[in-house]
């Protein structure tokens, strides 16, 4: 409880800081939302509302921007964000079987790409610019190249085992 409240307080202060850093300038909405998302790993509704109020713009406009860019997430993401590249090179090198293997192992569906325990979120991205390593996936900031469905599941099981040991 204490830790949670602390985190929330710290995050909220951070939001105030971000808005201040951009001088409450509504033309900086995108970088503000990016910075906010870095704190929360998604854009909570009340925070977006707070941003709109602070910038003096309608909250419908903030919602519009937040839903336009796929970079912004409106639902919480898991601790591990797995981005499967499905750009041309990776697609040709069979990225879809990797995605399917992940979804099967984590029991995900197209509408629900985050596990109930909030450990994993799976996404596809269009190109990571690492076509030489195709097919590629990125877990949080770590890049994994030349993947197969089997090596992907092995990687995943490793993380799960590590988390369970905690």
């Amino acid at each position: 409880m204490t830790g949670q409240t602390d985190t929330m307080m710290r995050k909220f202060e951070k939001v105030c800081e971000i808005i201040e850093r951009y001088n409450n300038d509504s033309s900086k909405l995108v970088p503000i939302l990016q910075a906010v998302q870095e704190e929360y790993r998604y854009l909570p509704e009340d925070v977006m509302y707070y941003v709109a109020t602070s910038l003096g713009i309608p909250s419908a406009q903030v919602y519009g921007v937040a839903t336009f860019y796929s970079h912004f997430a409106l639902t919480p993401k898991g601790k591990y964000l797995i981005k499967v590249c499905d750009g041309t090179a990776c697609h040709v090198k069979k990225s879809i079987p990797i995605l399917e293997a992940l979804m099967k192992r984590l029991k995900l569906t197209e509408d629900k790409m985050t596990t109930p325990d909030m450990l994993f979120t799976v996404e596809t991205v269009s190109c990571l610019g690492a076509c030489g390593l195709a097919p590629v996936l990125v877990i949080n900031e770590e890049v994994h190249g030349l993947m197969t469905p089997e090596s992907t599941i092995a990687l995943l099981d490793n993380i799960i085992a590590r988390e369970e040991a905690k």
Partner: protein
Amino acid sequence: MSNNDKGFVQINGQNVAIEGERNLLELIRKSGIEIPTFCYHSELSIYGACRLCLVDIEGRGLNASCSIKPEPGMKVKTATEEIREIRKISVELLLANHRVECPTCPQSSKCKLEELARKLGITEVRFKKAKLDHPVDLSSDSLVRDPNKCVLCGDCVRYCREIQSIGAIDFAHRGKHTVVTPAFNKDLAKVECVNCGQCAAVCPVGAITVKQDVDKVFAALDNPEKVVVAQIAPAVRVALGEQFGMTSGDIVTGKITAALKKMGFDKVFDTSFSADLTVMEEGTEFLERFTKGEKLPQFTSCCPAWVKFAEQYYPEILPRLSSCKSPQQMFGSLARETLPKMLNVKPENLFIVSIMPCTAKKFEAKRPEFTHENLADVDAVITTQELSRMIEASGLNFMELDPESLDLPMGFKTGAGVIFGTTGGVTEAVLRFAVEKVTGEKLNNVDFHQVRGEAGIREATLEVAGKQVRMAIAHGLKNARKLAEEVKAGKCNYDIIEVMACPGGCVGGAGQPVNFTPGTIKRRAKGLYEADKMLQLHKAQENPYIIETYEKVLDKPGSHKAHHMLHTKYQSRRRISDKGMPLMTGEGTDKLSIKVCVGTNCYLKGSQSILKALTKDIESRGLQDAVDIQATFCFEKCGQAPNVMIGDQLISKCTFDKAREALNAELKKKTS
């Protein structure tokens, strides 16, 4: 080509002079050629999305004419085979993305998509139908939003943002998932929408329509126990005729009365009567404030969209709003008080219908303060458009109806109550009362031309008995916002400010027939000024039935009884989203709620450090489960920041010690 320096554009082979048109579309339309558009409205910014206004410019190919400046020497073709085919494809694609239910759609026969499909001769849609499964938003008392019919022209979005400065709806999502929606996909009733309905007026299809209350009225008319009475707002009489082929501004009060009587209304009265009453109350209130020099400028309060707007964005100026109810609600109060006896009917069997040019009046009638003992002061509000539908549904030939006169006493009005329906009218009506009252002399020239006009913000000063009365008039909420900001900043010294949310005032209300023919609103306003001229009386204070009403019911203007019946209170709606940001959520039952304002003022005055210290204190004493802590937005006490709410107690100019003290007291109360 002539050597005229303005130059010419050749349109379909004929030269058309450029006379300051902002874009090619306007020039082409001036030449008498109709170009279809969804997303073009002369008063809104140019969007260029619908692609229906494409024309072929020699040497430049196909261009959207709304987004091109006319240049001398341009050669333009407006309807080549290629253009026709592209327009057809555009409309077919829209139809494939549109819930097609034309005969049962409220927009039927007024729908631009329907009209265009017919004009372009589209007999089949060659594209696969898209999945249309958005829920229809019925939450608002005034409007219905059906995203399945939306063509994404954005007219509503831009109107709400650019003319009304609200932005209650906007585009969300992307590509085929794009939808026009309130923030966070909320219901329209839960966001900033003030119900002015102009989004519905500009919507070319049936994606935003006015909520229909016709069935309620028909049901009451058919119920033998009910005595049904109507009040007709001033602006209705100069616009209804348009639905039956008449010119805007034609006065059809007599025909409306005849139609209502034929439908079975027992009595037909006039909202202009209660507008006269409003003049008496609002004028008296103004003179009192003016003499004392307090709560000025006095803002008018007849427009329910403006009232909600002020409640949301400017709670600090609410004390300056006239406390008078709007004429609609004054009529309701008075009717509930006097008619049961007069018409020998049980109160619950008296059914009061308003016929209004306005969609926000539907919302106003449902405000909880206007319902007493389960009886609403106004039972149903229908718009001018709904009235025309009722006339048609009743099988009446409107043009053939012989006029009938309104009923007494509440059908008798002066010109003051009639001009209420146009921008500047309320101010002028109040002046006709106030000047006479202050000078004590009979006012002979009742026309105050200085307050009339079309400009969005108008100012006028009038010398009355050696004193200057400074007035401002705004229509369109963006203009109202400008004045409210000035008042808030203490930068203006007006004495009275009139606000109407819709451009042109009530004559331009969203319940009126939709008519974008230039000059429509001006002609309707002219109709009202003419109606004023044709009446024998022009001052509310001379209305014999108003005088009688005061004698029999209300005592005198501003009396205790008048205040009880004809005045109201406003509520701050600043926290449009009443959700705070939860920072600590206890697990116990019966928790104490702690809300710390983190709005700009409170934040600057250190509310955040109070929040931090308080959280730490609660944790150190192990009280986490007994409380819920939230960071919230404005409590509307910015002058006394920082503000903290503990339980139901709002602590202004709060310090950590004050907060802790209150917290301990509240916790003690809970345990004892």
